[in-house]
């Protein structure tokens, strides 16, 4: 049965308390440049120190907790730089840390489990990893610069450079592909791939995949529910002013 034991986060809570409640918030804090130890500082205090709109942090943090949060004042284009900062750091976390880490575990498991079908798994994951890397690269090289360009024009409307077009739809298709293959691997590990002395590694691997899936899910919600609406808003504002 699903139940969320996670709390509804407000800005007067201590950062340490919300991390004790849901340690995955460490990722969020880190991506925003807030590092532990956090002493007994409140969320609000840490946000101020890091030049971050507390409402933006609360929106993200509550998403991590599976709670929908409506900011007291709606997020605006002023939050764009921090949103992009978060997304960029999260990409780096995927490509430099979590995917290579999972790949290593898969290789270790394939060394122990010498069933011939197991030999196909590292290749499956590597192909998948490459697809993900390509998608993240596309976001880094095309989407983020586009958003930042829009932001520049929004705060400095005299600029005449015209941003290139990009499609939010294409964006979402990429996401569902990324989730499908991850789910395929979970199915193979939990239901089908024959066992051979790999209990510990397989369990580690499965748990890592679930963590990654959860993180990817939050990541795409941030893009789809927070970033894309702000981008559309900036686009229509700019069109109006033309």
């Amino acid at each position, binding site marked *: *049965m*699903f*139940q969320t034991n996670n709390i509804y986060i407000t800005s007067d809570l201590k950062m340490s308390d919300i991390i004790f409640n849901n340690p995955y918030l460490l990722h969020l804090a880190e991506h925003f440049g807030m590092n532990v130890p956090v002493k007994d500082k409140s969320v609000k205090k840490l946000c101020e120190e890091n030049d971050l709109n507390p409402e933006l942090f609360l929106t993200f943090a509550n998403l991590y907790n599976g709670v*929908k949060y409506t900011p007291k004042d709606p997020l605006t284009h002023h939050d764009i730089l921090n949103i992009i900062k978060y997304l960029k750091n999260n990409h780096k976390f995927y490509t430099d840390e979590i995917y290579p880490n999972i790949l290593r575990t898969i290789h270790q498991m394939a060394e122990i489990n010498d069933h*011939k*079908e197991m*030999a*196909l*798994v590292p290749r*499956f994951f590597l*192909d*998948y990893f490459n697809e993900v890397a390509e998608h993240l690269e596309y976001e880094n090289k095309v989407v983020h610069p586009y958003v930042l360009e829009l932001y520049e024009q929004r705060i400095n409307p005299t600029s005449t450079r015209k941003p290139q077009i990009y499609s939010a739809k294409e964006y979402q298709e990429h996401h569902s592909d990324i989730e*499908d*293959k991850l*789910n*395929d*691997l979970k*199915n*193979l590990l939990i*239901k*089908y*791939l*024959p066992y051979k002395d790999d209990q510990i590694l397989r369990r580690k691997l499965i748990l890592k995949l679930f963590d990654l899936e959860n993180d990817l*899910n939050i990541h795409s*919600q941030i893009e789809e*529910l927070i970033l894309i609406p702000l981008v559309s808003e900036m686009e229509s504002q700019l069109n109006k002013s033309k």
Partner: protein
Amino acid sequence: MNRMINIVLVESSSILTEGLIGILNKSELKCQVTICPSFDDLEQILFRKKYDFLIVNPSFILSNPKYFKTLKSQHNNLKTIGLIYSWYDPKNLYLFDGLITISETPDIIISNIKKLLEDTSENDQNALQEVLSNRETDVLKLLATGLANKEIADKLNISTHTVISHRKNISQKTGIKSVSGLTIYAVVQKLVSIDSISD
């Protein structure tokens, strides 16, 4: 029926949510219930996962039936059940696929839910069994050797449309969607040899 049934329950009263979850948990149905205390959060919850049932207090939707209809059309496999504990105009209740009335006994509530589950189309019924049919196995074997839908259709003398429908069923039964994932599955099940799969 041994599949996990995913339910979203939109109701703000804990007496009702706890009570209904208690009844579901005591039954032989295996349910996973997500509680959604207000209608505003529903869209986000439905966006995250695929659900079988939406059990909802009618007062949430009567104020905005149009939105409810849109929601139903966006999630066409989602069955809706009204949770009835006061009088509603019957003509408003036709929007639901089924109803639960709080005066009903647990047995009747469970049997009504089961009835709705049986209503699912033949296709879905077929997908509830995990064993692949012979035809699905044929399609999977060819898929694993690297053939495209069109080539599989030609080989088996069926339409591309039929191949796609077999592939949908294969994915539903195995939980695996990608061709590369299904290829590994086919090797595990000894449907194809590891040497016959193309690179």
